[in-house]
């Protein structure tokens, strides 16, 4: 295939990918968008196979590799529970990172096949691009593995910090940049491998100090990295499809990180530098631990309250995902609707462990997406609502974010649950939320605490609604 034709077809791939993302602007067009994406990918694979010199033995191995990967990917895609999406996406990011590293190493050892010059005499521009690609790829790889382990519970979700951490990171960062610079003068194998090892190490170091509830930012950030890594390799291989895709994915991840940070009213740097709730903020809350009266109730009370309400807003959070309570919740809502109660769902941008996590879980439980609202669209409705049913959320409802400038979550946009006539708050215990801040909502007169597992409590309420 001529180079011009293949370039044009790679450009087509890029366009199809843009259309794939464009489709996601509404659920109706999204499935079509995904088909565009698949078409683009098939096109890219066919064009690249037609552009290389095929020899038979390698073709066999290639087909085997493709089938093994395809079968594994297919099985994962059908078996994975929706509650595990965050760790799945983190795991997938690590694969993109590792693939980028492998491609770059391969290009380093046989640059002639990639059209980059001879071994250790690679064109200057290409070696810089290759260095950047391999470095970002390696960071994505180890960073995503750590994120995966934290989300999967293979590793504690609490931040791991040690003295001098930021200096070590800064030092490694400088080392990586200097090594990429040094590759221009000296393309020796040692330098190349030290660059890879240093990048692997910094990827690990960047993610360990970040805690569980900051995971939405981390996943989005790694999403962005995997894009930049692909773009770096795209420049090395002079491939338009990779460059376009890398730019799309990179900016997509960056935007999601921004939205997540804004949802927590924290700067990106603040999240990266790690350790929410681990610093001095906890000393403040300790003095207030004297027992304040809390009204607690049972499933019967909750069922009674909701049955007699005319409107209910459900506020789901990560606890709902942990308890797998989405199906029980939907059952409860169906019963309420039969009693002519108006029900809607309110979703905070950072609810759950990844952007849009709650929406997917509710969609899985067959909740129609037009009953699910984002923070800005529903926040004014709380004042006219009878009951708020908070299931597995905590910090995102804490009024302290609006009233106490000293609180670590001050300024974070919250769902105005407290404006409802009554609030039902399902929680396993009185322990504070992730931010380590006591939620003053618990002590309000109009709050009824339901101490139980989210799923069990919801199921009990369903029984009492009959």
């Amino acid at each position, binding site marked *: 295939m001529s180079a011009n034709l293949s370039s044009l077809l790679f450009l087509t791939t890029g366009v199809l990918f843009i259309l794939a993302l464009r489709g996601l602007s509404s659920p109706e067009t999204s499935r079509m968008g995904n088909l565009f994406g698949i078409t683009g990918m098939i096109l890219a694979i066919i064009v690249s196979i037609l552009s290389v010199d095929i020899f038979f033995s390698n073709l066999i191995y290639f087909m085997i590799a493709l089938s093994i990967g395809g079968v594994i990917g297919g099985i994962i895609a059908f078996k994975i529970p929706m509650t595990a999406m965050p760790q*799945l996406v983190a795991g*997938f990011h690590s694969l993109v990172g590792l693939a980028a590293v492998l*491609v770059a190493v391969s290009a380093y050892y046989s640059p002639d096949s990639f059209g980059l010059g001879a071994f250790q005499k690679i064109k200057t521009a290409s070696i810089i691009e290759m260095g950047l690609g391999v470095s970002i790829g390696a960071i994505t790889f180890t960073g995503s593995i750590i994120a995966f382990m934290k989300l999967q519970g293979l590793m504690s979700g609490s931040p791991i910090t040690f003295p001098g951490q930021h200096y070590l990171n800064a030092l490694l960062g400088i080392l990586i940049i200097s090594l990429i610079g040094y590759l221009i003068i000296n393309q020796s194998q040692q330098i190349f491998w030290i660059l890879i090892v240093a990048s692997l190490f910094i990827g690990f170091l960047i993610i360990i100090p970040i805690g569980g509830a900051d995971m939405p930012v981390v996943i989005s950030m790694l999403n962005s990295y995997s894009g930049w890594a692909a773009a770096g390799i795209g420049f090395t291989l002079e491939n338009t499809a990779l460059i376009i895709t890398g730019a799309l994915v990179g900016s997509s991840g960056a935007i999601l990180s921004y939205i997540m940070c804004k949802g927590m009213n924290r700067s990106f740097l603040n999240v990266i530098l790690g350790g929410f709730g681990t610093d001095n903020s906890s000393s403040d809350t300790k003095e207030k631990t004297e027992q304040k009266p809390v009204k607690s109730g049972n499933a019967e009370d909750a069922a009674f309250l909701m049955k007699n309400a005319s409107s209910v807003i459900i506020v789901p959070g990560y606890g709902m995902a942990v308890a797998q309570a989405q199906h029980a919740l939907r059952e409860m809502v169906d019963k309420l609707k039969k009693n002519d109660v108006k029900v809607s769902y309110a979703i905070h941008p950072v609810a759950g462990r990844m952007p849009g996590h709650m929406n997917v879980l509710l969609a899985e439980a067959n909740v129609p997406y037009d009953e699910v609202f984002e923070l800005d669209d529903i926040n004014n409705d709380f004042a006219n609502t009878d009951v708020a049913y908070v299931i597995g959320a905590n910090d995102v409802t804490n009024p302290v974010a609006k009233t106490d400038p000293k609180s670590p979550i001050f300024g974070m946009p919250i769902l105005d649950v407290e404006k409802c006539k009554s609030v039902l708050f399902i929680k396993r215990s009185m322990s504070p939320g992730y931010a380590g801040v006591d939620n003053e909502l618990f002590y309000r007169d109009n709050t009824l605490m339901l101490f139980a597992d989210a799923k069990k409590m919801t199921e009990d309420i369903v029984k009492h609604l009959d």
Partner: protein
Amino acid sequence: MEIDPFIFRLSIFILSIFIGYFVVWSVTPSLHTPLMSVTNAISSVIIVGAIIASFSSLEGSSISFSNILGFVAVTLAAINIFGGFLVTQRMLQMYKKKEKKKNK
């Protein structure tokens, strides 16, 4: 003076970032999880590099180090391609509108 082809690629790159910026802002927040899984799937287009690596040849006809790296990279990218697109499809199938009230 002739323009370095690098500049063309850089132009494509910069403009694509802007396209990405505008397209992603128009994605509805309820689809942010599918957005992440589909961007993950399309970033596996890195398989084009893995294919070049798989068929790169040294003088001898035997399988080289680069080929092996290529095969591994193809496997990883394939997991991502199939896994990413299929799981996205599975998620998107679940986003349904409110059913028309038939039993009324």
